[in-house]
């Protein structure tokens, strides 16, 4: 069985220790451990952290578009999870807006199995809330929950469950199996034809506006619904200062609401749209600096529970077009950690960062093997970070099948240098590691 010896690494940025990974778990952790027999620097079973590299729990993404089935030209479960491993992720939630839509036990099981076969990280399929994402009637949520994929997160992401009654029923119904409805908050009538954030920049560029109120009005309604029926509610890719306020107030009242923010909404603003390059087209759109500042504050103070990438790969044909014709979305798995650190700097400690990128999303998605403490006996789902490594994002060098990154040319500090899934090395030095093997879990 695989063994790995990590010499002088800093768990959650703390004091350096040695760590032994064996049989898929953290076997021993502490200062001055002896390297087990048979490990070797050459094959990567010994890694020296030099008292500098930071050991973190493997990241968990609540919001990943793997595009399979249907758009394998943009991404597959294999290529998307490979990119995830490079980014330090050990579990991703695959969004349901595939073709066919993941609205039946059959489709979610297919995605789950593809994840198992790829073996780069655990793939947890998200089930659609409504049949075909049409917003008309509930999909068989219970069947998806009871399937081999054991779905716990449900979302019509890409579309909003805008019908108030349907949303109420979904919130109520999933309580039976501890499910979580993740809402893509976008009032459809207010965003008909919308191309970018509605404000001074859209007024100048002549692009149809996506007003902040279209997000905030849905979130406000949904937290009231969740409060009324006593359900959990999760808000996808929260993007405005007003949304932060609504979630903050709701949490103060004790509503079971959680929220995620994407790395790009923590860093970029609508000014990026000025050259009409659709690589910056995303939904919800890039907002203003005031929104970015509020999102950063909210992630730091915990109003926003976690970072989720909304990794949204698109082909060149779907991006190298006029702005209005381009599909919205950007890839983000491989740059997430560095972009978040770039955005919030030292305002999040390493243990807080572990919470936002691993513990909190694992808790929300009800993943038992991820987001765990780094301690003996715990599953060895881990990543190792070089906090000082400076690198420049190169679109063509990304491991996702699509290269629609808004960060090309951006120099970032800090990078994931190794990832382990149940003790098996899945990424090393910014590249996938080793052949994939079907995971055993």
């Amino acid at each position: 069985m695989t063994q790995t010896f990590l010499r002088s690494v800093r768990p959650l940025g703390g004091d350096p220790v040695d760590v032994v990974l064996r049989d898929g778990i953290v076997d021993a952790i502490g200062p001055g451990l002896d390297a087990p027999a048979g490990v070797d620097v050459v094959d990567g079973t010994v890694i020296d952290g030099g008292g500098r590299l930071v050991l973190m729990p493997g990241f968990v993404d609540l919001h990943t578009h793997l595009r399979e089935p249907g758009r394998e030209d943009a991404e597959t479960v294999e290529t998307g999870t490979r990119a995830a491993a490079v980014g330090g992720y050990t579990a991703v939630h695959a969004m349901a807006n595939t073709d066919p839509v993941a609205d039946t036990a059959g489709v979610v099981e297919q995605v789950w199995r593809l994840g198992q076969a790829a073996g780069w990280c655990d793939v947890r399929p998200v089930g659609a809330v409504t049949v075909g994402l049409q917003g008309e009637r509930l999909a068989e949520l219970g069947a998806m929950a009871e399937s081999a994929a054991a779905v716990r997160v449900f979302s019509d992401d890409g579309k909003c469950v805008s019908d108030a009654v349907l949303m109420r029923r979904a919130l109520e119904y999933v309580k039976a199996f501890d499910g979580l409805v993740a809402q893509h908050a976008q009032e459809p009538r207010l965003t008909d034809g919308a191309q970018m954030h509605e404000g001074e920049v859209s007024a100048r560029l002549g692009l149809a506006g996506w007003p902040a109120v279209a997000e905030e009005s849905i979130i406000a309604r949904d937290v009231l619904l969740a409060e009324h029926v006593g359900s959990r509610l999760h808000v996808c890719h929260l993007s405005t200062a007003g949304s932060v306020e609504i979630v903050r107030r709701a949490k103060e009242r004790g509503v079971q609401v959680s929220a995620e923010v994407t790395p790009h909404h923590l860093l970029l603003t609508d000014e990026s749209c000025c050259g009409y390059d659709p690589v910056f087209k995303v939904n919800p759109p890039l907002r203003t600096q005031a929104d970015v500042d509020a999102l950063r504050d909210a992630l730091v103070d915990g109003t926003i529970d976690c970072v989720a990438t909304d990794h949204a790969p698109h082909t060149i044909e779907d991006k190298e077009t006029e702005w209005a014709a381009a599909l919205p979305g950007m890839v983000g798995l491989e740059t997430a950690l560095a972009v978040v650190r770039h955005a919030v700097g030292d305002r999040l400690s390493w243990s807080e960062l572990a919470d936002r990128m691993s513990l909190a999303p694992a808790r929300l998605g009800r993943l038992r093997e991820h987001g765990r403490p780094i301690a003996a006996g715990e599953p060895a789902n881990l990543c190792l970070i070089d906090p000082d490594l400076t690198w420049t994002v190169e679109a063509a060098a990304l491991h996702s099948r699509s290269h629609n990154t808004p960060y090309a040319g951006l120099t970032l500090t800090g990078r994931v240098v190794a990832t382990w899934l149940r003790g098996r090395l899945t990424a090393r030095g910014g590249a996938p590691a080793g052949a994939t093997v079907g995971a055993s879990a």
Partner: protein
Amino acid sequence: MTGSMGLSSRHLLDAGDLSRDEALLVLDTAEEMSRVGDRAIKKLPTLRGRTVVNLFFEDSTRTRTSFEVAAKRLSADVITFSAKGSSVSKGESLKDTALTLEAMGADAVVCRHSASGAPHRLANWIRGSVINAGDGTHEHPTQALLDAFTMRRRHGRLEDLRVAIVGDVLHSRVARSNVALLHTLGAQVTVVAPPTLLPVGIGAWPAEVSYDLDAVLPKCDVVMMLRVQRERMNAAFFPTVREYSRRYGLDAQRVALLPEDAIVMHPGPMVRGMEIASDVADGMRSTITEQVANGVSVRMAVLYLLLGGAIGADEGEAL
């Protein structure tokens, strides 16, 4: 090096990109060009051997013809590429078209497109000059230049000229270009519209905003009416055509509120009886046909300034 005559950019994408000196250079050059139109032989050899492509993804006989005449008067070879139907739903065709034009060696591409920013994308893909002939609801810089040219001719100045732009500002590329250019040239702009037809974020524009046309008219040297599409009614921008017309249409009664020497402009196409009454459109103050004539001179100036400085041009001969 193109643009050596004094324009800093190879392209004309946004009116707002022009400095005051550059804008005045275009207007002054257009004055020279207009004299060519008065000659028996309306042609200069300046752009002989250069290729100008009219790339129109959207119907616009008026603008297309104007550019065509302008390029021909400068002796350029003109190719008209009507790509109507290549709508945004088939967006990738824009890049393919760009590569085709690039391979043919187009020196300038005049682009009209229904998507805001399409000419900006095009400029990334080809080496020649790109001239924005109207992109979605964004800009129409040569329209603003010809409007400024017309105003300057009628009033003799642009500095402190009081200009009201009235109508569907939200969806108007003419309004965006005019506000930017007129500000650069020192005019005082007021945009007038029902609040539904003004963009959120208009506060950042260098213009006053009013909802009350009757209050603005007595203080105008120029009133520019914008087309309002009837379909806007269906999206609840205003209740009925009749009500729009009553509150924001320019009829003879309202024209009487204008100062004596004020002019009435419209970029066309007009919806007579909606935003402008027929007797006003055809009246003494109207510059509507003049605008069309001036369009050719201004577009000649733009082509000349973007392309004329390059190899093969004989500037002395041109002017």
